[in-house]
């Protein structure tokens, strides 16, 4: 059978401003951008802190712990790799540090993922360059 797009999983392009994030992810460490003026964590990378307008920021390790803030269960996908995996859940995780990340929860059926559920980060080694942060249900 001819190789088709079905087998090719979409992988984020490593844009320069996110390079430190992916570098840490390869070591299975979760980092987020932290404003050096007001201390707010943000994700993904942005030029300016929308809270205090400072341009000074650094990538800092975060706990990787948080809670499910919202969840949507996809039943239609514009990409064949995902279309073959329907239905699946996409979640927003609010990290303990305050930043919100779009991600998914692994190891749970889509309908067993609920708002407020405690989660912790894990990494899915999608390619040698990209280890994708995902989340698992956690105890606390």
């Amino acid at each position, binding site marked *: 059978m001819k190789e088709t797009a079905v087998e090719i999983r979409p992988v984020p392009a490593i844009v320069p401003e996110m390079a430190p994030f992916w570098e840490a992810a390869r070591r299975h460490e979760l980092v987020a951008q932290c404003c050096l003026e007001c201390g707010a964590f943000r994700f993904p990378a942005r030029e300016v802190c929308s809270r205090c307008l400072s341009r000074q920021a650094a990538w800092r390790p975060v706990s990787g712990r948080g809670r499910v803030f919202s969840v949507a269960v996809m039943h*239609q996908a514009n990409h064949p790799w995902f279309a073959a995996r329907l239905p699946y859940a996409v979640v927003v995780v609010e990290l303990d540090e305050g930043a919100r990340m779009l991600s998914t929860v692994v190891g749970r059926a889509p309908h067993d993922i609920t708002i407020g559920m405690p989660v912790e980060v894990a990494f899915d080694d999608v390619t040698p360059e990209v280890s994708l942060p995902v989340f698992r249900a956690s105890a606390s």
Partner: protein
Amino acid sequence: MSTHPLRGAAAIAGLGVTPQGRVYGTNAIGFAVDAIRLALEDAGLARSDLDGLLVNPGLTWNDQGMGSFQLQQALGVRDLRLTATMNLGGATACAMIQHAAQAIAAGLCHTVACVFSDAPLKPPSPQGARSSTGAAYGFARGWEAAYGFFGVNAMYALVARRHMHRYGTTQDQLGAVAVAQRRWANLNPQAQMHDRPLTLDEYRASRWIVEPFHVFDCCLVSNGGLAVIVTSAERARALQKPPVYVWGMAQGHRGGDPSDTLTSGAVLAKEPAFAMAGITLRDVDVVELYDCYTFTVIVTLEDYGFCAKGEGGAFAAEHHTGPGGTLALNTGGGQLSSFYMWGMTPVSEAVIQLRGEGGARQVPKHDVALVSGNGGILSTHTTLVLSRLAS
């Protein structure tokens, strides 16, 4: 009585609606030209009467930045005094009419065509290839795509889930909005869903797009164009159709994460728009709220004060917003069940109702209409108060 100088200064004098839905044979520019031609005919005007052109380009326009110039060339109109390509998403339709009314009231121009068009649907493929109405709307790239997070449906789903979590809004309450609007569409011969009734049981059994949205929670996808002609109140009175006066207008754009506020910009726009119009909610006879999703209608009902915050779902389920109900809401079927011309759908239905041209769906008392526009993910919001009365 409001003494605001914009109140009643301008009026909608012409309405042009092309065939909507699975119509092919031209592109977005072609639909825009057709819609303006129809609106001019409706008003009894010629192209040469236009001195303003405002364009909200849909997703399939080639040149988003200079769309209005592209359209001016296609339309063959000369010597305009006002033009702009505008994009506040679904809030643009009302914003174009606001911009036109302001410019007319200031004496900068006198007759402005405002148009939206799009052609995201392709003719059925001869090979019978799979059709996906979502395909034209593949917004997500990069980060989101890595998680299979695609499009505006999913973005709104996350916000709707927060509303359900915080306020106890239920699936059946979302369904009540879909069913009520479908009943209106069944009375509207121009509606794509005119011949397709919908019960709550059928809603429950319908396929999911992205939970908590069934297919009937999401707006339609439509090819077509829709234009209105805005002119001074004085000129409008001399034309062939009953004028639809612009009584009040405002905008509200909240910023931040809509998942936190769970409100639209109506909370900002309502008060100044109503103050300009000199009305309260009780004066509104016809309500045309932007409905990209059933959920958007629920939030917008709350934010205009038809019910308390968080009670929009119960209101929609209990207060009978369908034909014969207590609130005449989205009386043509809205974008969920008639056609999706971004915010132009609610504008056009307000014009039809205020003129008394609603046929089987005509609302008996139709002096004042409230129209809302909403763009992004509850990000941009525009309000119009329209009336068939000059003052």
